[in-house]
């Protein structure tokens, strides 16, 4: 197990790196979206899977990153890779500003606050028409860079997963988990829970910001409704839950399986796929709240690193 797992990962990485050389444009776009979902589900996992603070408005960081990077490209003429990193920084700054008051809220109140934040940000970008184009949206200069964005998305997904690995296997990660397990005890045992939650929130916001920028660059056009959709938050939550929240590979697995499922079903049954997606949510929550990896870990007593 210990030997073939890294070897398999390396092989997969090489295969994915070579994939665009022989793939169709459509194939590259599909894989690029898969990477995006992995990065999003994994980022949500960092705050909500580890600390138990459920962020119900995580797409706000995606949307903020999309707008920040697009504005940097359109008004300041930044190169897109730099602008996308700027989107990540903008999302992280927003997380800091929002986290400072909101992470003091316990349980469902935090979830509701983040949900509200998403709606607020959508209204804010609609209002500042001069910068964002308001409801008409913002068009980016034409650019054919799907393959480059494919690699960028892949790197972000890999980095977020690597960061998760480092965190989960460290004392910092264990301390984040104590917040999920029993926050009062964590405080009483000397853990500055607010600071730890803020770090986790900051880390969980950066990648969605970058990914939002990349996605905006890939689409070439953004509008408030397209980059702040609630369904996107729900999708990343379901992916993380399905694979196993609080684990390293659960969100990757959940994103891959559900994304593949969506692609296959969507192609055949346009109207049915949302219904089936809803059925999966209900099924997971009722039958398998720990997700696939969570169940396997418990059943076979696997270490946290699997």
């Amino acid at each position, binding site marked *: 197990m210990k030997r073939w797992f890294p070897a398999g990962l390396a092989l997969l990485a090489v295969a994915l790196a070579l994939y665009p050389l022989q793939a169709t444009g459509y194939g590259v776009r599909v894989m690029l979206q898969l990477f995006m979902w992995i990065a999003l589900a994994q980022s949500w996992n960092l705050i909500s899977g580890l600390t138990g603070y459920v962020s119900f408005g995580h797409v706000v960081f995606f949307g903020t990153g999309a707008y920040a990077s697009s504005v940097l490209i359109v008004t300041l003429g930044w190169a897109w890779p730099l602008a996308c990193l700027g989107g990540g920084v903008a999302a992280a700054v927003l997380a800091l500003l929002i986290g400072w008051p909101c992470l003091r809220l316990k349980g469902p109140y935090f979830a509701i606050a983040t949900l509200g934040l998403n709606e607020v940000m959508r209204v804010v970008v609609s209002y500042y028409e001069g910068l964002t184009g308001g409801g008409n949206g913002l068009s980016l200069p034409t650019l054919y860079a799907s393959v480059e964005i494919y690699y960028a998305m892949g790197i972000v997904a890999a980095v977020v997963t690597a960061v998760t690995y480092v965190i989960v296997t460290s*004392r910092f990660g*264990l301390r984040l988990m*104590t917040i*999920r397990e*029993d926050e009062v*005890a964590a*405080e*009483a*045992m*000397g853990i500055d829970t607010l600071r730890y939650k803020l770090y986790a929130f900051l880390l969980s916001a950066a990648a969605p910001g970058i990914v939002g920028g990349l996605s905006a660059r890939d689409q070439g056009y953004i509008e408030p409704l397209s980059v702040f959709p609630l369904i996107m938050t729900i999708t990343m939550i379901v992916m993380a839950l399905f694979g196993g929240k609080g684990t390293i590979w659960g969100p990757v697995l959940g994103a891959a399986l559900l994304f593949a499922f969506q692609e296959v079903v969507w192609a055949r049954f346009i109207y049915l796929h949302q219904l089936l997606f809803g059925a999966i949510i209900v099924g997971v929550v009722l039958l398998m709240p720990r997700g696939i990896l969570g169940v396997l870990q418990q059943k076979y007593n696997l270490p946290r690193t699997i």
Partner: protein
Amino acid sequence: MAPILELRGVVKRFGGVAAVNGVSLALEPGRIYGLIGPNGSGKTTLFNCITGVDQADEGQILFKGRRIDRLKPHQIFHLGVGRTFQVIRVFPELTALENLLVVTTTGYAEARRRAQELLALVKLERLAGEFAGNLSYGQQKLVEFIRVLMTDPELILLDEPAAGVNRTLLNELLDAVRRLRDQGKTVLLVEHDMKVVMGLCETVFVLDHGEKLAEGAPGVIQADERVIEAYFGR
């Protein structure tokens, strides 16, 4: 000797009820103190005020001469005040070992060594890799107890350490508490088991309706009319 912990007229209200109503007391270092009183007399609330879980509405709390009544729980912990809880609060989905590791501030290797040492002290070394939530009630209680000792606190507050622990285990636990005292630590414990209180504590405080009813040596307290009345009624 200067007191290690001093409470001056501490008041804590919940709505209209004063759970703790003007309690003053002082603990000298290197001794074991007991805190007793009927259910609802304010013992746990007093613990919560000292450790910052609840903020006192009035009065002052001083640890080694420094006011701590406006500090946060994690700050108070790092000054050297450790506690256990009445209802067990281990981290269930962390292993016994990890439950200890999260508490430390030292390097990882040093923390591991200390954790193994403490697990051996309460004979739990073979369960180090087990999720704390899978341990028995008594074992979880022990994990909580040694978790407090990871950072070597000077003042240790134990909320009903004997409840639900079998006799053999209990005697080991009490021995451990005495050893702590011999090392110069101060211990304040809430306990309903009078045998434990009388056998272990050098000074006992009695709370009733949030007020300090009596204070003294266990023998004296046991004979105190007011204490008997508070427990059994007139």
